[in-house]
């Protein structure tokens, strides 16, 4: 019985200690960010954030998810700052009183990728014509289907092309997963998908430079993919670390960070192009 008592004392001690540790680390200039899968999957944050921590002394942790969910985490005050890419949704977010400052940091563009054989004949078409061709040929198209920034943009493109969202069509596959996972599904099923260029380059890199899926549609103005840092509205989230979030936002727009973003390359190509003002 004595040892049992000892054990319970030990356990409660451990629990108190672990609680104390969590509280303590939360006090020491620590920032929690929700971001999109593209900034994480490409390895950009793994490369960039150590510089931020070194230069500012602020520790940054991040969870990566679709932009829709990231915005929700901010709305619930579960994070302190957001790095997302869905400008219209971001503006509504601020108008609704959830976000405060929005700072454009970098961009790349969306592209439609597909098999080299290009069964639906997308090559040379503009984005609206390409989507019509996919629909007419009932070619497999993989959608993220997860309300991420990419998914939001894709839905907008269908609308622009005058096509009702093919939600229930058999050729329209909604993976519900991150961008790299969705590209991998497209490869397995020999289908098309829309991706940001950064994630596509990462995928090419993984395939040793010779990927089965290739860029078929690119270049329309509407395909621009803008990434921004969003701070939360202190009125909605009084406990979120607004000051530190602003510091992060400023740092991302600083010359040093902008240069580093521009220097981040795979296969010699830039994944994100800095454009902070």
């Amino acid at each position: 019985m004595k040892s049992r008592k000892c054990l319970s004392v030990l356990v409660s001690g451990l629990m108190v200690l672990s609680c104390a540790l969590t509280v303590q680390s939360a006090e020491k200039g620590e920032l929690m960010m929700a971001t999109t899968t593209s900034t994480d999957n490409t390895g950009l944050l793994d490369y960039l954030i150590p510089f931020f921590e070194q230069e500012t002394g602020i520790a940054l942790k991040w969870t990566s998810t679709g932009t829709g969910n990231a915005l929700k985490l901010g709305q619930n005050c579960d994070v302190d700052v957001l790095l997302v890419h869905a400008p219209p949704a971001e503006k509504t977010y601020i108008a609704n009183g959830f976000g405060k400052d929005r700072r454009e940091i970098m961009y790349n563009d969306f592209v439609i990728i597909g098999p080299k054989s290009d069964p639906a004949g997308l090559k040379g078409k503009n984005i609206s014509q390409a989507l019509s061709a996919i629909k007419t040929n009932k070619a497999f198209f993989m959608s993220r289907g997860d309300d991420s920034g990419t998914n939001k943009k894709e839905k907008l493109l269908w609308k622009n092309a005058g096509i009702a969202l093919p939600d229930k069509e058999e050729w329209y596959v909604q993976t519900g997963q991150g961008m790299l996972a969705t590209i991998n599904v497209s490869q397995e099923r020999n289908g098309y998908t829309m991706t940001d260029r950064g994630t596509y380059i990462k995928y090419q890199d993984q395939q040793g430079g010779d990927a089965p899926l290739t860029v078929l549609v690119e270049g329309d103005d509407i395909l621009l993919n803008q990434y921004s840092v969003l701070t939360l509205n202190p009125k909605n989230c009084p406990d979120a670390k607004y000051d530190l979030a602003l510091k992060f936002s400023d740092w991302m727009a600083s010359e040093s960070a902008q240069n580093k973003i521009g220097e981040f390359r795979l296969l010699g190509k830039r994944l994100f192009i800095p454009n902070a003002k």
Partner: protein
Amino acid sequence: MAFLVEGFLKAMELLINGDTSTWSAVSATVKASTGSMLVSLLTGLPCGFILGYFDFRFKRSIRTLLDTLLALPTVCVGLIVYAFISSKGPLGDMNLLFTLTGIAVGQTILAFPVVAAITASIIENIDPALKLTLVSLGAGKKNIILTCLWEVRFGILTAAVTAYGRILTEVGISMIVGGNIKYHTRTMTTAIALETNKGMFADGIALGIVLMAIAFTVNLSLSFLRKR
């Protein structure tokens, strides 16, 4: 097949070279699962004992409820815990979201019914003759209970191992409550999910092998205990 071979070689490489992110995932897994195991044993064993040993009203309904909870999907636990510990939730002030403690809370909810239900069954199935013998030998109530507990020690070990298996393999709670944060709340299972998501199958398999090695070590040490 190539994935498996490549994965195995990679697993050896990760472990031997002391890869920081792998070891941090191992340590996160061990920390969270140890915490949740201790709490679920400390609460589950007494509850299971009471349910199995004594007779009282609603006993059957509680057992049914407990058995239903055995099949609780981990993502549902993750969602429920998230709703409670989110900053806008009733326990938001405790700052448990995106921490290992938060994961441990969710895992405890998962493991508690396993420990309690299995313990209750084992206690129920104790040979009735044992109690009679003890009474006829003039044992007091406390001695009877202690002797019964000693008799079922291996059964309780089984309950613990089963619960540990459920905790070690879950991914829903770790992902939703922990947030898969590198070097902090990234556990073995969420790391495997992430690598697979990125199409890095060999890395996923490597981590899977490491996870199986942990499970194997735990089981081996427990069966060693049983032999003694």
